[in-house]
């Protein structure tokens, strides 16, 4: 059988937990990590007779997202009941949006290997999260914790525009950055604040029709997403090349043995019987709400990357690093605000700051060295007041003890030796003290010069300008 050139087609459904204080339909606290069932009120538990009331902030956040991806925003939208039985779904139905989502078609632009890709967003709708089933053994029982039930979710559904596992991962990463820039999600993947389902199919390249697809559930890390999709693509190609056909099913990815397997048990329903929730009325998206939502759309990663490249002349890798996390971008921009150069600022943040944060396991928002101080420190190097080596020392002092850059430089007398006379004296003394090295140099051993520079630097505790030291030495050593 001739080998076929397979093309994979991938679409993602990303569940974004909205960072509201209270639940989407109740006044219970939406918090992660509380003791089981201490954040589930009567409404979240689906107790008899209780009723949902919609959280305004969840609506505002959904609208902010919609505006950020230039999506069509519904004038009015509606909530529907999606019926299926599962122990983490207290009411036996999930309140979701079926045919009137709050956010319609939009687009996300991202860069993959330098090229810009436009990924279509089919829709984004509001719904309530379910609780958690805890499978650790209670004598063949499963424990149900409903703290998460009723947490607001924005389900973002992409078009099947993604073609490779790397692209899918890049898209997930871009969405992760976008929701964090918008401040609508804490982006904490470990706590499940963003969860992703991937729809994967393959087809011979050039074929217009999509192949049969499978859905891989609960991919909550960039790496697992890439691995799971890559694995599923290989599996499907294997199935097709062995003459079988792909079965539409829901699969789970097991990172331990890097494979996907069909999901047992949770074949929720083949008929969700959606219908408008009679406990909730149509939501009118007022111009007031839209105004508030618009006011909360900041400069997004892509715009920042362009600006950093075009206005600041930074490289793709620099901009990639600096814009990936809104807090890093904010730190970088605050550093620039002191008037130092963009490139050295980028280098300092990517090297010294990043390394120090890493070592101490700190988040950039908790960096002991304020961006203003870093900016001033870099400015002092640029002004020639201190050398890069000294600046390193100053940075360590700032990190350990805090304080103010110029005060530290003064207090520790770290300014460069600028007195030409004194530097010349030191140079003459060093030369006089090492006659045989002088001979070697004069005999043409150029690298001995480094020895003299080192000595002079030691004498000046690194405060001398290497350029001038070189010049003075060459004069003094001239035969």
């Amino acid at each position, binding site marked *: 059988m001739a080998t076929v050139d397979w093309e994979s087609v991938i679409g993602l459904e990303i569940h974004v937990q909205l960072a*509201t*204080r*209270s639940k989407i339909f*109740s*006044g*219970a*606290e939406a918090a992660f990590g509380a*003791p*089981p*069932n*201490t*954040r*589930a*009120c*009567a*409404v979240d*538990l689906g*107790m008899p007779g209780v009723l949902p*009331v*919609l*959280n*305004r*902030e*969840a*609506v505002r956040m959904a609208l902010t997202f919609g505006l950020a991806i230039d999506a069509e925003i519904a004038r*009015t939208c*509606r909530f529907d009941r999606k*019926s299926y*039985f599962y*122990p983490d779904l207290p009411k036996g139905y999930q309140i979701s949006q079926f045919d009137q989502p709050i956010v319609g078609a939009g687009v996300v632009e991202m860069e993959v290997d330098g090229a810009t890709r436009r990924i279509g967003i089919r829709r984004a709708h509001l719904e309530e999260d379910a609780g958690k*089933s*805890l*499978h650790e053994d*209670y004598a*063949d*029982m*499963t*424990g*149900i*914790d*409903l703290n998460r039930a009723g947490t607001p979710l924005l389900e973002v559904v992409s078009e099947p525009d993604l073609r490779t596992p790397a692209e899918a991962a890049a898209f997930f990463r871009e969405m992760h950055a976008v929701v964090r820039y918008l401040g609508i999600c804490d982006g904490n993947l470990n706590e499940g604040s963003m969860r992703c389902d991937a729809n994967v199919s393959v087809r011979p390249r050039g074929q217009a029709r999509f192949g049969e697809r499978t859905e891989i559930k609960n991919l909550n890390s960039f790496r697992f997403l890439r691995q799971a999709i890559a694995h599923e693509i290989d599996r499907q190609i294997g199935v097709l090349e062995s003459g079988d056909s792909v079965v539409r099913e829901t699969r*789970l990815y097991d990172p331990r043995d890097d494979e996907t397997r069909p*999901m*047992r*048990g*949770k074949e929720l*329903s083949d*008929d969700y*019987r959606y219908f*408008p929730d*009679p406990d*909730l*009325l*149509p*939501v*009118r998206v007022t111009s007031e709400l839209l105004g508030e939502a618009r006011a909360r759309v900041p400069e997004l990663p892509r715009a920042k990357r362009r600006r950093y490249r075009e206005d600041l002349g930074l490289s793709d890798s620099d901009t990639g690093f600096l814009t990936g996390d809104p807090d890093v971008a904010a730190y970088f921009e605050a550093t620039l605000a002191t008037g130092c150069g963009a490139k050295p600022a980028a280098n300092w943040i990517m090297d010294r700051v990043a390394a120090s944060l890493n070592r101490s396991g700190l988040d950039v928002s908790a960096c002991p060295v304020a961006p203003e101080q870093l900016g001033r420190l870099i400015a002092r190097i640029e002004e020639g007041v201190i050398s890069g080596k000294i600046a390193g020392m100053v940075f360590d002092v700032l990190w350990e003890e805090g304080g103010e850059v110029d005060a530290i430089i003064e207090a520790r007398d770290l300014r460069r030796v600028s007195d030409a006379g004194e530097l010349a004296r030191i140079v003459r003394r060093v030369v006089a003290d090492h006659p045989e090295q002088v001979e070697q140099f004069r005999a043409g051993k150029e690298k001995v010069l480094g020895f003299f520079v080192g000595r002079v630097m030691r004498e000046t505790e690194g405060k001398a300008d290497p350029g001038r030291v070189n010049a003075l030495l060459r004069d003094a050593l001239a035969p």
Partner: protein
Amino acid sequence: MDRQTLDRLTRLSQLQLSAEEERLVLDDLGHIVALIDEMRAIDTDGVEPLTHPLDMDQPLRRDAVTEAVDRARFLAVAPLTRDGLYLVPKVVE
């Protein structure tokens, strides 16, 4: 209304009917379907469905924590709990 349809409905609604009940219900549902089929006589072309009698917009709640949860009060009415969790037969995913 046939047995196959009824089986599907009982599965979707997680109900279970005794043989006796099933015989009766199958019969009743047949009559009920005949009753609701009487709607066909009404011309509803171009009529907008009325999903709710109230002509009102959904009120929006301020995002504030207003419910202090007293777990014990809720667990007290549950048939089977342990360590603050509701218990169900083992669920396999």
